[in-house]
């Protein structure tokens, strides 16, 4: 079926809470993110930023017993999936949206050989295709030798497992592949191979990708557009070059300086002062205020919708420092 290019995923001002031990944890706070057909979008954030919740909610995978969508919408290929039942979500999983995870062992069936697991996904999503030939094709795509079909997941190396999980996901012919920390458990050389593979697959299949990582270098190397999350808010987004070279939000600036791992004249590393936010006790306004040396009075009241980050590219930031053109950082008395 020919598909009109558009937004394969649209998260619109989505808020998600978890009930944990009598407390309400605000995992996503009016976060927005769009992935267009065919593009590679990176989502970066630290632990507790809400990035994995965003990935899971995009496939209806948040635990219904404790999680609740408070407001906002999820649109998959233009369909409003916010209030979908489990059965309705089931019809969207794999095609048009598939997902791979940090730990493939958790998602591959441990007592089933790899071949039948790939075949299962082919049979379900493209029953019209010759099965064996399609499995061969998928293995070739993820660059695994065909002997792997007879192996059990535990017999494979970490990199091979991730390739096997990718083959299962690609068997569904997704329009969007969500990859949640796909290389975090891997060694650097294997990580580089998997990243190269993901880029190659995107090019060959024309599929969109949402790559989620805490590692800024990985996202910078593989994505065209970037979203930055902090305490459940999407605080900055734009072209990869714009966000990484001219970060706008004080948090993104601090994060990039810290990630750069260079010591200053006093021999110290760049840090962000203070502790990560407690999602059960978020202050009103911008959640970064307690750690921000540029905070203005309005920052503690509410968070702006979005301002132009004025880096010359399409680049948005949710920070009051950018309220008026030409002011930027000067308003806070620096730079």
């Amino acid at each position, binding site marked *: 079926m020919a598909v009109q290019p558009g937004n394969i995923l649209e998260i619109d001002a989505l808020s998600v809470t978890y009930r944990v031990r009598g407390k309400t944890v605000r995992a996503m706070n009016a976060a927005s993110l769009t992935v267009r057909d065919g593009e590679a979008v990176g989502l970066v954030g630290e632990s507790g930023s809400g990035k994995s919740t965003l990935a899971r909610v995009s496939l209806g995978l948040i635990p219904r017993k404790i999680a609740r969508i408070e407001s906002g919408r999820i649109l998959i290929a233009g369909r409003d999936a916010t209030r979908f039942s489990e059965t309705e979500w089931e019809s969207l999983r794999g095609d048009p949206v598939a997902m791979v995870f940090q730990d493939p062992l958790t998602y591959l069936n441990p007592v089933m050989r790899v071949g039948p697991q790939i075949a299962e996904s082919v049979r379900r999503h493209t029953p019209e295709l010759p099965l064996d030939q399609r499995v061969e094709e998928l293995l070739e795509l993820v660059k695994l030798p065909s002997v792997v079909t007879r192996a059990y997941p535990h017999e494979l190396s970490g990199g091979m497992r991730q390739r096997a999980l990718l083959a299962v996901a690609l068997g569904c012919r997704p329009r969007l592949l969500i990859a949640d920390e796909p290389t975090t458990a891997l060694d650097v*050389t294997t990580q580089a191979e998997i990243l190269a593979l993901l880029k190659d697959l995107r090019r060959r299949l024309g599929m969109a990708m949402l790559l989620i990582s805490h590692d800024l270098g990985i996202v910078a190397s593989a994505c065209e557009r970037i979203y930055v999350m902090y305490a459940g808010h999407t605080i900055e987004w734009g072209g990869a070059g714009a966000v990484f070279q001219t970060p706008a939000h004080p948090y993104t600036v601090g994060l990039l300086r810290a990630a750069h791992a260079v010591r200053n004249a006093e021999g110290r*590393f760049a840090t962000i002062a203070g502790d990560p936010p407690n999602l059960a006790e978020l202050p009103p306004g911008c959640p970064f205020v307690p750690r921000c040396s540029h905070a203005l009075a309005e920052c503690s009241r509410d968070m702006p919708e979005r301002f132009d980050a004025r880096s010359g590219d399409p680049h948005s930031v949710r920070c009051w420092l950018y309220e008026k053109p030409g002011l930027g950082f000067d308003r806070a008395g620096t730079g």
Partner: protein
Amino acid sequence: MEPLLALQNVSKTFRRSGGSVVHAVRGVDLEVGYGETLALVGESGSGKSTLGRIALGLLKPDQGRVMLAGKCLNELPPDELRLARTAMQPIFQDATASLNPRRSARELMAQALRGRPQAIEQRAIALLDSVGLRPGAEYLPRYPHELSGGQRQRLAIARALAVEPKLVIADEPLSGADVSIRGQILNLLIGIKEERGVAYLMITHDISIARAFADRVAVMMQGEIVETGPAKEVLSAPRHSYTKQLVAAVPMLDAPVNAGALEAGD
């Protein structure tokens, strides 16, 4: 001058359940000088953690000697060994696993400070202060689960420092830490080194941290050290093909051009 720690021709093999043999460490020579920071880098399975455990005396090498401040640890009787080993303290990746969850910070610190002449409580507070858990007195009654990940790692560091070690062996101390917390822990380690002159053997897979943090680096592959030298030199212009491959695989990030314009939360 003799080195603080010297591993001499150390080897260790493990037997797998199937009967096959893994040569985890093969004839390694490695030295850490007084006050020196050495990074031991390599991928998983390279043998770097095994080597760290041998240095700490947690594993017996099949062959070779572990010399600490001129004494051969393999030859010391148990009670002398215990005493000699206090000059060396470990910090692990997972502070949660290395701190007894049923002990408060006060109990954990008291345990480490046992047998010291000074008032234990005061010393514990001073140590907690020095690792940035301020005011230290407020942290004494807390249990590990009441601390954030970064705070737990600080408590683990405070406990390691309690015995005034000459060498801290840190096995992936930053792996669980977020980028914004990483710098805080590294700066803490740098400050401790400046104040107390401790040496570090940091075992890490993170090339960019090793390059910036360490004086010297040793690159390990399949149980052997394939390249060693000044950290900046080796990890910027590697000679060995494996080091080259390792360095090239790290996705590099340039410094943001406007980083100076906005100093985030200093």
